[in-house]
């Protein structure tokens, strides 16, 4: 595919890619670009739900495996709030393994030797796809908060537009957890004929007041940092402290009380007694600070604002007359809805509401709740039963699809 030239990257993506990433790319015969593959969208202007239009859009994505001759084995993996397209290769900045190598890879549930897997950096993201840190063509400077507010539907429509451009007519499976699950639901509702099977995990069809509240805390932390500078911080230090606090607060919501207790309890960090000060006395404090400080190295604060906003705006039923079942009327997609007992951010009741709506239209749906103390992040972690269940579902769907 012909690729248009691109402007120089800025902010974090300018960092030299990590050696682990470079080695993986070299072995695959790919370029060093930390964004993976980057394509300019041909179907522009791209009109957003808000009514705003983007005259230029670039999309960064990763692919694994081979598209078969019938083009029937494509799997779209949708990433969550702070994820990116590097689902099954070392991360270009941190060098850590891909964020879902337990799920995606050779011999895994989403088997890259059997399926053609594509993972796309979402619209508004910060690893190559058009977002607030990319250049606004009208000014020649980074968008900052002049970037239009985007929605989950916009993310999905951009993914669909890219797949059109790549000549992928439909998807054998769309899978994702958390915000990735919202995209899965939107895909299934918006393009039912293009989704053979859908796996929304640890997600909701509607962001709750509690979800919005936590996001607002994160956004206010970023905007309270003087280095945020009204969003025009590119070239400067940037709101690292604010973004770090936002990440720390959010990270607590991804865990569970039982999990935190089991892992940290009240254990002290590198000391035998309380220090009577405000250093990180407790291991949990040290852990959260580490989570915050490593996060700011790889994520853009403005992207965090935009993507959390998109999640807050997510209310699938609202787009279909207020009745969630209407979103799935006459669907022929096979669904597997998954929740985790200790996930209090998107509790099982949210998944059950999705299942009720699917039952109401007699959709082909499976629903499992898995017992774990690992909280919302369970979908990213080693929960063996989770992968056993999905292996069964995906295997049966592939058999039905004839791949």
């Amino acid at each position, binding site marked *: 595919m012909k690729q248009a030239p691109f402007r120089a990257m800025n902010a974090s993506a300018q960092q030299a890619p990590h050696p682990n990433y470079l080695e993986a790319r070299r072995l695959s015969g790919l370029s060093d670009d930390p964004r993976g593959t980057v394509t300019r969208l041909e179907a522009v202007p791209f009109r957003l739900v808000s009514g705003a239009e983007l005259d230029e859009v670039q999309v960064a994505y990763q692919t694994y495996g081979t598209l078969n001759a019938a083009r029937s084995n494509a799997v779209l993996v949708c990433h969550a709030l702070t994820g990116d397209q590097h689902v099954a290769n070392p991360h270009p900045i941190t060098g850590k393994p891909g964020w879902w190598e337990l799920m995606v890879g050779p011999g895994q549930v989403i088997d890259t030797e059997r399926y053609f897997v594509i993972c796309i950096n979402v619209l508004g993201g910060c690893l190559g796809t058009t977002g607030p840190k990319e250049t606004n063509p009208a000014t020649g400077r980074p968008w900052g908060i002049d970037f239009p507010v985007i929605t989950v539907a916009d993310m999905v429509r951009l993914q669909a537009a890219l797949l059109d451009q790549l000549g992928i007519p439909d998807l054998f499976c769309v899978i994702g957890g958390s915000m990735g699950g919202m995209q899965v639901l939107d895909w299934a509702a918006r393009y039912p004929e293009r989704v053979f099977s859908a796996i929304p995990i640890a997600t909701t069809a509607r962001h709750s007041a509690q979800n919005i509240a936590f996001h607002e805390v994160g956004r206010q932390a970023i905007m309270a940092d003087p280095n945020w500078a009204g969003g025009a911080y590119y070239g400067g230090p940037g709101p690292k402290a604010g973004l770090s606090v936002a990440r720390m607060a959010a990270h607590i919501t991804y865990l569970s009380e039982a999990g935190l207790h089991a892992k940290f309890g009240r254990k002290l960090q590198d000391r035998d007694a309380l220090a009577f000060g405000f250093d990180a006395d407790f291991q949990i404090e040290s852990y959260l600070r580490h989570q915050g400080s490593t996060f700011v190295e790889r994520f853009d604060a403005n992207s965090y604002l935009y993507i959390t906003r998109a999640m807050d705006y997510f209310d699938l039923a609202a787009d279909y007359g207020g009745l969630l079942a209407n979103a799935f009327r006459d669907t022929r997609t096979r669904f597997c809805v998954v929740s985790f007992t200790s996930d209090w951010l998107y509790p099982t009741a949210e998944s059950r509401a999705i299942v009720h709506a699917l*039952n109401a239209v007699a959709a*082909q749906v499976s629903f499992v709740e898995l017992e774990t103390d690992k909280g919302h992040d369970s979908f990213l972690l080693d929960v063996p039963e989770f992968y056993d269940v999905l292996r069964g579902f995906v295997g049966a769907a592939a058999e039905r699809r004839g791949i």
Partner: protein
Amino acid sequence: MATTVAEARARDIRVDLLEIGKMVESGSRVLDIGCGDGDLLYHLVHDRRADARGMEISREGVNACVARGLSVVQGDADRDLADYPTGAFDYAILSQTLQAMRDTRAGLEQMLRIGRRAIVSFPNFGFWRVRLQLLFAGRMPDTATLQNPWYNTPNIHLCTIRDFISLCTELGVTIERFIAIDAGGKPSPIAHSPRLANLLAEQALFLLSYDGKRDPAGAPVYSD
């Protein structure tokens, strides 16, 4: 046509489940309520080419089913049947679960709302061994189909075949077919007499509908 025990063993599936499978027309839409580990569901999908789904209350059962590639939701039949649209299925099946429902009567009505037909099987509390254990030992029965002790059994609404026929009459439900299953797990010819079946059958299997037709093979009108 009776199913042989050997046939069932060959497929590693209970005889009563095979009999249910035979009641289901090939290619139809089926909801198996209380599908357990999915043995019947698997049989319906793979041997009867049915578009079959399941509902199961236990997390372990659901996970086992989905891992087998079956479409199963975790749910409570007493609460969640109401979510399904009317006429969504050709058959709603309640296999050995009727007696465990909180509201059996409402459950039966729900089944006949979401399914054009209902298939119900349950252990017969009028079975002679059950009667004898109560009569002579004065203890709650312990049989092949009623194994849990009284204090932790899920079976809270046990009934006899005649009780069930009476409920069907009360609800205006037509019994299209009735199969009595004897102590050997095989269909028995005693089904022509509900009173005899009530004594000799260990399990009962009914095909039900509203204003359906009775088996033209001359099955009697089941009313007491």
